């Protein structure tokens, strides 16, 4: 055991000290991520010794990876809000909805903006609508933040939760433009054709995954630029002591608003990617449960660290999916009869229950998340050492 940990320390030590080695490792890993959705490649991935595949069998691997990737984008956006600025936002999926609907309304030939209101003659291509989607998501972030950032803490959580719910209900009930539950079909796809003339972006999830992965990489770098500048310092200062930050010349309200706007913009990108793939947008995806799932991703991974957010975003999608596959491999029974009732115990059905257990267990044993940033980790260590008076009595 100690030999293993020793090796681990030596390896991590090497990568910590040598920058080229670190960059090399990241490049190799990113390359791995790009080839991952190819069947010829992932078929060989399994837990050594026991034959448990690491890939998913319930859904197409590329599709699952694409879902992971747009969730990761959301987690990255929310990480700016929750992780860096310390603002609890429970309605983050609302911005995803804004992005998705913007793309849908502008690229679908069946959009009512075209068929009924004649705002424009013919649908725009997907690519043109993405910047608009981002801009609108950013704007809605500002519009939501302007009034609600005046309230603090848990109240902010409920205000944002309310906002997401309102967006969903408007999308559900609103018949004039968003078409209610029937939604908007025939949403445009991203551009590009293979050499043989067939469009790249159709119903195969693989190219979307590549596109989303690229966006994740871009987002990581841009957010990293922010975090390592005065902006990131201002956010952390606000998180740690808002009043002191204000008195040291940090325009706290403005930076909180920026955090909201940037998070929202990233959420909007994610929504526009999803809409481009899904071809159909209605209100069903924008439930509050999803907002909570993204928040869980950020905190599970480790708030305030982009690597953590990525890990979290990956896990919240992948683990439930993978549990289904494991059930298939071992041929677990799908139902059990207890008394006279058939209980559905298939991993498919229980995957969110497993996931819930996972959340509880991780939070009990690693409340700082799986991959926290150095600063947060220290904070948690200190908290643990502080003995709570009275807990022993209870």
């Amino acid at each position, binding site marked *: 055991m100690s030999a293993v940990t020793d090796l681990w320390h030596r390896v991590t030590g090497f990568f910590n000290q040598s920058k080229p080695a670190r960059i090399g490792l990241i490049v190799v890993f990113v390359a791995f991520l790009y080839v991952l959705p190819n069947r010829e490649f992932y078929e060989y991935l399994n837990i050594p010794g026991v034959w448990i595949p690491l890939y998913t069998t319930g859904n197409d691997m590329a599709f699952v990876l694409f879902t992971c990737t747009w969730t990761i984008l959301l987690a990255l956006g929310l990480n700016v809000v*929750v992780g860096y600025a310390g603002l*609890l936002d429970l309605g983050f999926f609302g911005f995803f909805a804004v992005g998705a609907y913007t793309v849908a309304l502008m690229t679908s030939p069946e959009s009512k903006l075209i068929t009924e209101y004649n705002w424009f003659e013919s649908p725009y291509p997907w690519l043109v609508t993405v910047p608009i989607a981002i801009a609108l998501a950013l704007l809605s972030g500002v519009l939501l933040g302007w*009034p*609600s950032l*005046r*309230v*603090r*803490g*848990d*109240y902010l*959580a*409920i*205000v944002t*939760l*309310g*906002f997401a*719910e*309102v967006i969903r*209900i*408007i999308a*559900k*009930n609103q018949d004039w433009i968003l078409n209610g539950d029937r939604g908007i079909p025939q949403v445009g796809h991203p551009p590009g054709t293979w050499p043989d003339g067939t469009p790249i972006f159709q119903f195969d999830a693989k190219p979307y995954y590549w596109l989303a992965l690229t966006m994740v990489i871009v987002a990581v770098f841009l957010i990293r630029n922010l975090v390592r500048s005065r902006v990131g310092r201002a956010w952390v200062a606000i998180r740690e002591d808002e009043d002191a930050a204000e008195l040291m010349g940090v325009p706290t309200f403005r930076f909180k608003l920026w955090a909201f706007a940037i998070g929202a913009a990233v959420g909007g990108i994610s929504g526009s990617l999803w809409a481009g793939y899904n071809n159909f947008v209605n209100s069903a995806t924008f439930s*509050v*449960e999803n907002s*909570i799932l993204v*928040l*869980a991703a950020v*905190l*599970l991974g480790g*708030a305030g660290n982009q690597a953590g957010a990525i890990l979290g975003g990956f896990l919240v999608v992948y683990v439930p999916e993978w549990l289904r596959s494991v059930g298939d491999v071992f041929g677990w029974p799908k139902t059990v009869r207890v008394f006279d*009732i*058939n*209980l*559905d*115990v298939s991993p498919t*059905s*229980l*995957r*969110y*229950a497993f*996931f*819930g*257990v*996972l*959340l*509880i267990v991780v*939070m*009990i044993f690693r*409340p700082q998340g799986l991959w926290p940033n150095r600063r947060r980790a220290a*904070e*948690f260590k200190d*908290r*643990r050492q*502080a003995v*709570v*008076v*009275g*807990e022993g*009595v*209870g």
Partner: protein
Amino acid sequence: MHFDDLVNGFPNLTTTGLTQGAIYALIALGYTLVYGVLRLINFAHSEVFMFGTFGAMWTWGWLGFGSTSGRPGLGTAIMLIALGLVVAAVVSGATAVVVELVAYRPLRRRNAPPLAFLITAIGASFVLMELMGAATGRIQFGMPPLLPSNPVINVGGWRITPLQLATFVVALVVMFALDTFVQKTRFGRGIRAVAQDANTAALMGVNKGKVIALVFLLGGLLAGVAAVFHNMKTGNTRFNVGFLIGLKAFAAAVLGGIGNLRGALVGGLLLGLVESYGSALFGSNWTNVIAFVVLVVLLMFRPTGLLGESLGRARA
């Protein structure tokens, strides 16, 4: 906008709103109690409520009253309701205590940060909801008809059904009992002491762990009561019934000032009324939007809710 609907239906809209509001208030009290003592949004409380709805339903089913059976006599109905209340309260109370023991207590031992609690709360909510979903096949279950639907009071078009009357009376009695319990008894003093300053209370000999378990139990009991009336009002339940109603009850708690017991009552009733009037005015599709818009607008102007936080002290 249908102003005439609002004006013509005003008395009946008020009764409907107050009835729904009483249910919200009962659930909101669970959020507010826990928040007041632990500063924790007990996200799993909606599932505590949901377990109560099933507890009552199964009791009735076990006694031979299913969604297809005929209406029993009044005496039997009252018996069934009383039994349902007891079972639902016990089931919900037990669920709440289990959640506290499994999901929150280990974190408190480790002095985890507030956000970690929120995540385990979400996790616990997932577990409870999904287990119930798996156990019940994720379908909707109907309730047996218990109380007659012809109004007990009918004055010039203003009608009150037996169910509305029962809901309101029982809710008020239960809330009055809770208020007395918290204000007058030794346990209640313990709750208030921990809410004000947990560590000092512990030094003064209050058993913090017991107080916290008690608070969860109380919240669960009230949610169980709410569950029975919700069952009878909507006539059905399913594994995810808790989510939206829990969200709204939490909104009600915030509306009144979270941590404040009377605030939960005021917030719940107000939310019920606003929803009722609002759905007449804008159409029932918009009920949920109205609830949240009111909440958001109110928080802009009174950031600590109508009555402010008070079970312990207000938080900066």
